[in-house]
């Protein structure tokens, strides 16, 4: 497989105190490629995603990134008393989208994940899975070319979960570079590549399968 790589991680290291979380991690994700990032709890998957997004600074190493990023964190960071539309308007404005544009585009995305658009419920009163759909929708709102999805399907019902992996196929076809943190080994056949982060970074580096 060849092509441009919008996301390249080179020799990234991260320590918290005396604990090494990541050591010399390399990762290269091409346009139109879906990569699954796996590993035991504490292997540093979420930390690596945060470093790629720029939310956490690596102690060493380098990340290069081409294009707009869409980051879906594991825990939806949302305002408890704002509605989905409020969030869409707020996040859309960050990149200069108008109110109408943000809502129209956001609704189109959320509809694909069966988000209950007819309810004007504040996020605190949404179910965990529905909140997660909004969380994912916000990551997709600005049509990013690099998608960093940290266990984005948590709380999804079976139908939406299957739908999520169908969307991965669509994102691949659209030429997006997608990284999905996952523990769902049954779905690994649907990705192009699996990158496993070792539990003990000093023993081995990222293993590609």
């Amino acid at each position: 497989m060849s092509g441009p790589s919008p996301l390249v991680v080179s020799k990234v290291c991260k320590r918290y105190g005396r604990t090494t979380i990541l050591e010399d991690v390399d990762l290269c994700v091409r346009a139109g490629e879906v990569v699954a990032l796996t590993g035991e709890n504490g292997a540093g998957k979420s930390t690596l995603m945060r470093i790629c997004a720029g939310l956490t600074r690596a102690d060493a190493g380098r990340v290069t990134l081409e294009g707009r990023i869409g980051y879906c964190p594991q825990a939806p960071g949302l305002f408890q008393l704002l509605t989905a539309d409020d969030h869409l308007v707020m996040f859309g404005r960050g990149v200069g989208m108008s109110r109408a544009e943000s809502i129209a585009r956001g609704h189109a995305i959320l509809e694909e994940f069966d988000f209950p658009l007819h309810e004007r419920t504040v996020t605190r009163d949404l179910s965990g899975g529905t909140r997660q759909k909004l969380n994912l929708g916000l990551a997709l709102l600005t049509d990013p070319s690099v998608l960093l999805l940290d266990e984005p399907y948590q709380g999804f019902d079976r139908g939406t979960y299957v739908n999520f992996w169908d969307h991965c196929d669509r994102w691949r076809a659209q030429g997006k570079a997608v990284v999905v943190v996952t523990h769902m080994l049954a779905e690994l056949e649907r990705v192009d590549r699996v990158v496993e982060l070792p539990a003990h970074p000093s023993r081995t580096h990222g293993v590609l399968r």
Partner: protein
Amino acid sequence: MISFSRIGIMAEMHGRDLTRRHGALALLVALPLSFYLASMGSSDYAVSAAGTGMAFAVSGATLFSILSSHEVDQRLVLGGYRPLELLLGRVMFLAPLGLVIAGGFALLMSLVSHPDRPWVLFLGLAVVALQSVPFGLAVGAALPQELEGTLVLIGVIGVQLAVSTRSNVAKALPFYGPRRLIESSLTPDGPILGPLVQTAVYGLALLVIARVFVAQRVAVERHQPSLTGAAEEV
């Protein structure tokens, strides 16, 4: 470049968030009112106490506006916002809200406590409300843990209430200027300009502190593209 449109959206969203917290809104009014009513035996002290209650209420609301959005703020910065826009959005909503509450209380206290200069009382309460916003922002930004932030807020405003304005400790605290203004309203010739300037300087310093800590807390590293454009790999 700072965008007024993004600041406006943040102000609107903080407004929506707070106006859906009906209990918090009620307490914003009830807290200064209870301080005032509880001190009614001493007319002069009651006016100062109401000011203190307002400082608690407005800075508390500000503190929680910054603490409750800890996770969202960094994501918003990733999505194109600047840390200063997040701060100014809060100021844009909370400062006018504080002024409305101050106006209501100034009217009430003018009718009940009959200060010598009601307009100075309004000015003093307005300054309390305005100072409370950067104070709450600075505490929330510097101490992002709820318990620590709340205890510092209670401690600083509590000490300000407890000590006389003649004490050196009082002069080092953020609500010294506003308190002097409120006390000036009870006399025909108390100082006005000095406390106003002092409050403005303190308020600006608090905003700078909030800006520094927020920028540090929500910082996003913007990764650059590869020097040769998108990296090619076979």
